[in-house]
């Protein structure tokens, strides 16, 4: 099960993680819906790019620009959080959405916990695979911790001060800069 577009849904994608004995060349991409590591995509793309059921995932130290011309080829792109304290994935997501124009499913995988979900959805993630040792019904609550935000990110695309007329100090005269 994963959280996708704010609901809990069944998931039939498999994430391929290289084992110690594997290399990007030797790794076998099984049939069916598979999310492969970026390196596997880069090396085996001739073999797998015709498949409709291929996704790709980025490690936190990999660059989204490496997918520059390819983002539209994927039904799903995932970003791995090796530890919840590693925040690079947030910038990767922002760049995939805002700079590379990726419109498909953007999934957070790895050390994904309830209290990160609110931030993750704002930088562009719309799918989350919470850590399996936690209840997904609890994790989904993290998406609605706040109902207002100040700054623009991928979502919303406007800062609060452009969204609404906020109140100034009514007792003050005109501010003289």
């Amino acid at each position, binding site marked *: 099960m994963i959280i996708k577009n704010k609901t809990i849904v069944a998931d039939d994608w498999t994430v391929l993680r290289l084992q110690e004995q594997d290399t990007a060349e030797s790794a076998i991409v099984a049939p069916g819906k598979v999310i492969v590591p970026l390196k596997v995509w880069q090396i085996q793309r001739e073999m797998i790019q015709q498949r409709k059921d291929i996704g790709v995932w980025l490690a936190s130290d990999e660059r989204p620009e490496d997918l520059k011309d390819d983002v539209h080829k994927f039904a799903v792109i995932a970003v791995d959080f090796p530890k919840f304290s590693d925040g690079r994935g947030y*910038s990767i997501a922002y760049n995939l959405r805002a700079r590379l124009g990726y419109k498909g499913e953007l999934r957070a995988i790895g050390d994904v916990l309830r209290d990160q979900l609110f931030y993750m959805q704002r930088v562009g993630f719309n799918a989350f695979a919470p850590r399996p040792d936690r209840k997904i019904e609890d994790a989904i609550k993290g998406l609605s911790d706040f109902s207002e935000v*100040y700054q623009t990110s991928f979502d919303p695309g406007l*800062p609060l001060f452009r969204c609404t007329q906020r*109140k100034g100090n009514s007792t003050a005269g005109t501010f003289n800069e």
Partner: protein
Amino acid sequence: MYRYDEYDQQIVNERVKQYRDQVRRRLSGELTEEEFLPLRLQNGLYMQIHAYMLRIAVPYGLISSRQMRMFAHIARKYDRGYGHFTTRQNIQFNWLKLEDTPDILADLASVEMHAIQTSGNCVRNITSDEFAGVAQDEVVDPRPYAEILRQWSTFHPEFAYLPRKFKIAISGGKEDRAAIYAHDIGLAVTKNAQGEVGFRVLVGGGLGRTPIIGSEICEFVPWQHILTYVESILRVYNQYGRRDNKYKARIKILVKALGVDEFRRKVEADWADLKDGHGTLTSDEVNRVASFFVDPSYETLTDHDSKLNEFKADSRSFSNWLSCNVKPHRIPGYAIVVLSLKKPGEAPGDATAEQMEAVANLADRYSFGELRITHKQNLVLADVRQKDLIHLWQESTEHELTTPNIGMLTDIISCPGAEFCTLANARSIPLAKVISECFEDLDYQHDIGEITLNISGCVNACGQHHIGNIGITGVEKKDHDEWYQVSIGGAEGNDSSISKIIGPSFTFNQVPEVIERLIHVYLRERTETERFIDTVRRIGHAPFKEHVYATDFMAQEEKVADKHSVEPAQYEVPYYSPRF
């Protein structure tokens, strides 16, 4: 000052609710301590040696009397009747229970306050000039921009898990009073030749293990673009800052490694498509926020008051206080008053609940109900009529807030040290107490004149020892005993510099004598107009070093076993520590 609208209030209320649930999940075991740690830190909650410590944000050091009274309430109800004002213009309470903290945050929310991002690897509380809006040398009032940056950085979704903590300071005077050279980002709001407002942007300053003065990355960023420009700096740092080594994770290391030119190139490349985008500030928003910082209703007064002069002639204490703790104000007939939290023998920056209530009352009566907290751990009443100074002095003297030592030797900056902090190698506050008692004599202090003395219990430099004229650091040695390194030549402000160590370290009991010897060399060598720092810069370290180490110290040492009331190593506590 800034007042919350319904959006600000809702965000803070929802934070309380979120945090309450996080604490519930921690207490029920649903969250491990490792998972709870970054969550509580982003709410300013540390686990110290004896208890939980909560650091509360005082945005850019500005606070109302009502908020100060809430601190008094928290001190009484949840703590041991006092609080500690910090070098980042915040307050921290040292003796809390985890299960009380959600209620404390709810109390704070009721007076438009919070503890959001006062710790953790995120953008911390924005600090600023304690004399903002009233300083005579002010070019542009930094407060509206500090508030705009506060809102922008609050819960920024992309920058909550940075490689390391991130501190922004902003100043708007000709003289920098916010230590902008010692911050991850230092902003000087200024005007260009056309009179347009913008920011000189410094990046990569910081203290800690690797003290570095910030480098200029842009000479002038027009005000409209400051949020997007800062965003690009943060994004470059978030992606490229080191995460493999905690001590090399600050932005200063990245800027050094890349070089400031390459760092700038990366920032400008990221900024290219943000510039003029939706994140660009509007004049409507700047005007809205600035409307909270318009002048209070000042009376038309003049600077000369005959009563004041008479009283000055009569009372030496008053006249000392006037020359030391009262600063010029840009409006005729008004003055800025610094209330000293550095009474000799007391912990620097500590205030009791009674003192908090007293200063709140003073603020209501004499300064439009507002106060400021300084990065030197004192309090400020920014808008006092000069004709009220005598009464104000009398009343605040009753609360031990008028020690005339602002900018003097006993105006010591000190971190909490080994009595509280799990990282410290040595005690800081007891040393500050002893030094302040040794140099209590006011005539002597005033003869020495302007000088700064900063104490950190370890190399992480929460006491900012690198930018003290005299800096003291607790160092780690194999014998696990308390040792202190002494350095001289540091300074903050426009002529910031990093101090240099004078030589081998000293015992606790030797340090006051070391200071005495340093002062002796200064008094011997100084020219008529020189401050301590000027003499150090002119004659160099050698004469100081020579005299300090020339003869044995008088200090007697106790048996090692009797020295420590606290032995940090024996406590199993997490890695994070106060103000770090």
